[in-house]
């Protein structure tokens, strides 16, 4: 079974804090993704990565950055958290070769910024 884990299930931070969300997958997947999920808006892609040290902006990258130093780990960074970044954050990974686009998700991190 594919296993995608996220470092925290719930997180409470204050405005202006630097926030790190960690994601680890154990299936040697090439691709990793960060989404945020808000009521009525569905999943919106923040950043994704097709390889180690590679990153691409998604649809809503503003206020976020990412790091992929190792293949199995993809970190999302909020440089200076703001209240409008309160959301559910979901990490996903996919094999990425041979047409294997299925994305497998972690359990999510519910972030509250006060």
């Amino acid at each position, binding site marked *: 079974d594919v296993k995608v884990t996220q470092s925290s299930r719930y997180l409470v931070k204050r405005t202006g804090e630097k926030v790190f969300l960690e994601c680890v997958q154990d299936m040697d997947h090439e691709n990793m993704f960060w989404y945020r999920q808000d009521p009525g808006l569905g999943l919106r*892609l923040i950043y994704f990565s097709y390889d180690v040290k590679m990153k691409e902006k998604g649809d809503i990258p503003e206020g976020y950055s990412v790091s992929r130093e190792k293949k199995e780990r993809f970190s999302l960074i909020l440089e200076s958290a703001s209240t409008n970044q309160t959301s559910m954050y979901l990490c996903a990974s996919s094999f990425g070769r041979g047409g294997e686009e299925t994305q497998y998700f972690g359990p999510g991190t519910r972030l509250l910024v006060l």
Partner: protein
Amino acid sequence: GESVGLHLPTLSVQEGDNSIINCAYSNSASDYFIWYKQESGKGPQFIIDIRSNMDKRQGQRVTVLLNKTVKHLSLQIAATQPGDSAVYFCAENPGRTGANNLFFGTGTRLTVIP
């Protein structure tokens, strides 16, 4: 960007009945589709997928139908059980070369009435 939507935001069914959840997509070049199930407080879970060269695929109690003519996708759940209560959403791969990104609909909340 692509538009992946759903006809109904909520669906209530009696336990034991069959459920049909619909999804419309706008990109005729999309070549891969996935249905996900998301239970409250959890990450999306892969249910079933289908490629554009097929019009039907069956899994355990679930069937996905693809109508490329009208760009419509449906998920049928047989003998719906209380454990099927969740949000279901479809995702499409727009088929651009080298891209593994998925575009997600906003979801339909299925409620199973015991």
